[in-house]
C-alpha cells in the first residue's frame, strides 16, 4: 500500500482502487459492454414502443 493510502478519510476516497487486482479491472472493463449495450437496447425498445403507440393514435 502506498503511503498516501494509509487508512484515512482521504485515502478511502482516492485509494479504493489500490486494493483491486488485475482481474477486478478486467471484469469491470468487460462488464461495461453488456451494461452499455443493454441500456441502449432498452432505449431503442422504449422508442419503438412510443412509435407503436403514436402509430395506433394516427
Amino acid at each position, binding site marked *: 500500500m502506498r503511503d498516501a493510502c494509509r487508512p484515512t478519510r482521504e485515502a478511502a476516497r482516492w485509494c479504493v482502487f489500490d486494493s483491486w487486482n488485475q482481474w477486478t479491472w478486467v471484469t469491470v472493463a468487460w462488464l461495461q459492454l453488456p451494461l452499455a449495450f443493454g441500456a*441502449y437496447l432498452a432505449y*431503442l425498445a422504449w422508442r419503438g414502443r412510443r412509435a407503436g403507440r403514436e*402509430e395506433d393514435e*394516427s
Partner: protein
Amino acid sequence: MSLAPSRRPAWLNVLAGAAFLSVAIGAYLGLRVSPPDVNQGDLIRVMYAHVSVAWVSFLAVGVAALAGIAFLWRGRSRMDVISVAGAETALLYGALTIIGGMTYSKPTLNTFWTWDAKLTLTALMVALLAGVFIVRGLIDEPQRRGRVSAVILIVVLASLPLNYLAAEWFRTLHPAKAIDLTGGGVTIDGTMLTILLYNVVAAGLMFVWLLVERVRIGMREVEIDARRVQADEGSSEVVRV
C-alpha cells in the same frame, strides 16, 4: 401511406443473434484464450474490449458523417435518419472507449485521465457527438436540423485522422499503436492480434445491428410525423372551407 414495418423482420433477428454470439465468443477469447502479456499480465485482456470499441467508434462517426454529407447533397430524410443513428451509436462507442480507456489506464499508468492530445481529441469527439443531439433538440425544422447536425458530424470526421496520429505526433501517455496503418507494422503477438481483430469484427457486427435497428425505428418516426403533418393540413383545409 405505408409505414415502415413495425414488426422486426426475421433477418434482423438473425443479425441480432449473430451480434450477441460473436461478442460473447470475443469475450471468451479475450478472457480465457488470450495469453497474459509479458509486461501487463492479465490486464492485456482489457485491451480487447477497449481497442475494439475505439475502432468501431471511428467507423460509426464515418457512417454518420457520410450519411450527413448525402443528406446535405440530396436532402432526403432517410439519410438524416441514418446519420442520426450513426451519431447515436458513435456516441455509445465513444463513451465506451473513454470509460474503457480509463479502466485500462488506471492500473497500468496509475492515472484515470490526462489532458494530452490523444485523450483530449477523443473527449472532444464525444462532446461534439453529444452536441449533435443538443443542437437537434433546439431546431424544429427538419431540413435545417439535419443540415446543422451534418456539418457538426463532418467536423468530427475531420478530427479523426488527427486523433489517430496524435499518439505519434504529440507527447502522450497513450501507448504507441500495436497495429500501425501508417507503415509502422504490427508489434503484437499473433494470437493476441487474431483475438483483437476478432473482437473488432464482433463489435462491428453489434454496431451494424444497432444501426439498422435504430434506422428502422427512425424511419417509422419520420413516417408518423409526415402522416401527422398531412392530417393537420387536411384538418386546417376543412376549417378554411
